[in-house]
């Protein structure tokens, strides 16, 4: 459970704002974003670069909505709701931009392991077949530097989540950053050195926030390659990490009685979804014989 600090700030205490969402009046606490207001009102807003445990970067633009009086659409994830805002979440204009963002990603990346994004594409009638057949794509080789995790940047939609989780939002390691410019942007270490040569400490928090499986456990990668990854058969067991006394919660994903990957709940008050190398990868002893 997260703490609602707003109740401790006299400036925010007991203040609310009222907005109109698709014609309906909605009141939310001051400081909430348009996305929060939409969620409170039961409007399902698509998001890709947004994560509840990271500061919004509003880069993917799939959550854009129409706000009366604004020349352009605005990102719901980062724009605070203001009193009197009239918001349209399903206008033709909104649907159009969302559809185009999804077409742009669909024509650029391998989204085969991003079911949530594919569901959005279906919802907004994204049609990736109408583009030139030889259009530019990311086309990156999978980077396998070690036995812990792989980086398949052909799947990377440049949502900045891994960069932020590696940096000031969680880990403060700064092993990766955005490099290049424009369509050539890539998540990279300095001079693209391998992870063991970089500052990476293998906390795996980047994997935890990746929305497209561009970053994945080597165990998952190997099973997928062998055609043996069966997510629907997996169980997820929540437990407490056995290494130190901090009390991080782990979610052990188990297939055929073997741990295949470890996650942590984003809403957990200790971890906020983030772990260290031991909690993330140090579980081989469980099945050691």
């Amino acid at each position, binding site marked *: 459970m997260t703490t609602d600090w707003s109740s401790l700030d006299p400036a925010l205490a007991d203040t609310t704002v009222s907005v109109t969402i698709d014609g309906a009046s909605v009141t939310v606490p001051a400081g909430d974003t348009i996305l929060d207001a939409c969620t409170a009102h039961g409007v399902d807003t698509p998001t890709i670069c947004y994560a509840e445990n990271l500061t919004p970067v509003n880069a993917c633009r799939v959550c854009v909505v129409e706000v009366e009086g604004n020349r352009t659409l605005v990102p719901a994830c980062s724009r605070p709701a203001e009193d009197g805002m009239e918001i349209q979440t399903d206008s033709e204009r909104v649907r159009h931009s969302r559809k185009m963002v999804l077409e742009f990603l669909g024509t650029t990346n391998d989204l085969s392991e991003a079911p949530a994004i594919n569901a959005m594409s279906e919802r907004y009638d994204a049609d990736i077949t109408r583009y030139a057949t030889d259009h530019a794509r990311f086309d990156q080789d999978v980077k396998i530097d070690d036995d812990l995790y792989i980086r398949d940047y052909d799947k990377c939609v440049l949502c900045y989540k891994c960069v932020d989780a590696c940096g000031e939002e969680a880990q403060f390691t700064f092993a*990766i950053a955005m490099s290049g410019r424009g369509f050539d942007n890539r998540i990279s270490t300095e001079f693209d050195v391998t992870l063991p040569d970089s500052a990476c400490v293998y906390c795996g928090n980047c994997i935890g926030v990746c929305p497209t499986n561009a970053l994945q456990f080597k165990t998952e990668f190997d099973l997928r390659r062998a055609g043996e990854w069966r997510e629907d058969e997996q169980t997820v067991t929540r437990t407490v990490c056995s290494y130190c006394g901090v009390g991080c919660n782990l979610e052990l994903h188990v297939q055929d009685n073997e741990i295949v990957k470890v996650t942590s709940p984003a809403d957990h008050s200790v971890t906020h979804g983030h772990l260290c190398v031991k909690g993330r990868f140090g579980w081989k002893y469980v099945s050691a014989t």
Partner: protein
Amino acid sequence: MADLKLTVDHSTDAERGAVDAVLTADDHAVVRVTERLVRGGMARRKARRHLLLPGLHALQAEVGWISPGGLNYLCDVLQVPPAEGYGVATFYDMFRTDDPGHTDSVHHVCIDTACHIAGAEQFAQQLEAEGKQVHRGPCLGQCERAPARFVQGRGEPDHVPADTSGQPAAPHRASVRRLLKRVGVVDPTSLASYREHGGYAALARAIDIGPDAMIDEIRAAGLTGRGGAAFPTAIKWRGVADEHGRSKHVIANADESEPGTFKDRVVMENDPFSVIEGLTLAGLTVGAEHGWIYIRGEYPLATRRLRHAIDEARSAGLLGGDVLGSGQAFDIELRRGAGAYICGEETALIESIEGFRGEPRNKPPFPSTHGLFGEPTAVNNPETLLSAMYIAEHGPDTFRLEGTEKSPGTRLFCLSGHVAAPGVYEVAMGTTLGDLIELAGGATGTTRAILMGGAAGTFVGADQLDMPLTHEDTRERGTTLGSGVVTLFDDSVDFMSLVLRIAEFFRGESCGQCVPCRVGVVRQHEVLVELRDSGAALRPERHELVDDIARAMADASICGLGHTAAGAVQSAIRLGLIGGTP
């Protein structure tokens, strides 16, 4: 921040020397004072991050690229994570992160609009035949002397060959001489000459009447920003002035990179003290002590003249602890960009000064409350500052004697392409497009189209010569004044090739932060490549696709680059310049 981990690569003496020459001991993020006392920490690191760009410039100039060892040293000095340093270095055109394999200067040849039709490609090939290292790239801001070249020096300073072959083409005529009154008249290297020609009269009066009255006069004058967005200057300045009790900044946005724009260059090269005075006026008016000039890296002469002017002004007490006896402190730091069109966008510019990639911020919050280093900041184009000076000196009523009710004052226009005398022209707003072109000697051929506002603007047909050059009239006719670009194209131009280059320009200049722009500019370019290769008319489904792309970029991109990246292409299709008869 965790301790930095550097790669095994070592810097050379030359690299360390280059960095040490621009970053003094006090600039280091960690300083060992005695055996046991070390100065460092987060605040110190953050306060020095803005020195990253100057450091990268130093490395690039010294060894021709940013090597792993050189980057290590710079990152260690400033305590910047190497991955982030690399991310910044790879963002800019003027830096390279792979060994060029030669020790020569690099000749940048512009291949955009005016240079495109002036034989830029042949020029580039000729330089290559001479054995020179050539880099074909975006507009260099020398459109009046197309095809343009800028030499990124190695073993010699950066320079523009045309500068040394005589004074750059001065403005040829002005129907009203306000902003250009000293250009070609004053000695750009002499403060005494500047003062003899009325310099610092504007600042003296601004100090005399005080900040509130100054802002009121600018509001009464109806001044709007001359960089392209035409935002009311008084609102911007009032916003910053109202942020009491905080450290504040004013920035001169001299990163003019819009293809076809070179007005600020002409002013800065020929009347640099005016930019210093204008920025000082802005600073004292909004209550900022810190002034910055962010100038594009391809303007070596203007950079030199501004640096000299800043030093002169400081020696004369016109910058420093007590500006012109006002009791107020104000000083200016100059920063060179490194080849990125996007850094002309004010929040990208701010990120760039801070030592980050030039990725625009989402607004709100606006720079007037959260600008440079998170502090209130006013960002203005040099021409805007000069206009504010005119108002300070002569008052709003005199300012309004020229121009229209809704678009008062004069403006600088950059004429290039198929026109007799390309150059910068100052005319009253409301002057017709045709009269402006006549002032520049008229078209040299049969005009087929005119590009208004540069690559981010739109094409208009020759039937628009009666259009008054005001914000309201251009808007009504679906075009823009933008940054004052007027590029003429006669009927000999291959528009398919020209428009394709404009699309390629955006493909190369999008920062890539948001999806609509990062991918949209690429898909737009691809549709045009396909169209060119087909040799046929634009098919309806392709027309629909390119319109769909344009709409999403305009609606959903973070910044103005994405919002305008389809304007020229869309207007070219509408006018039948490409794609067949509309």
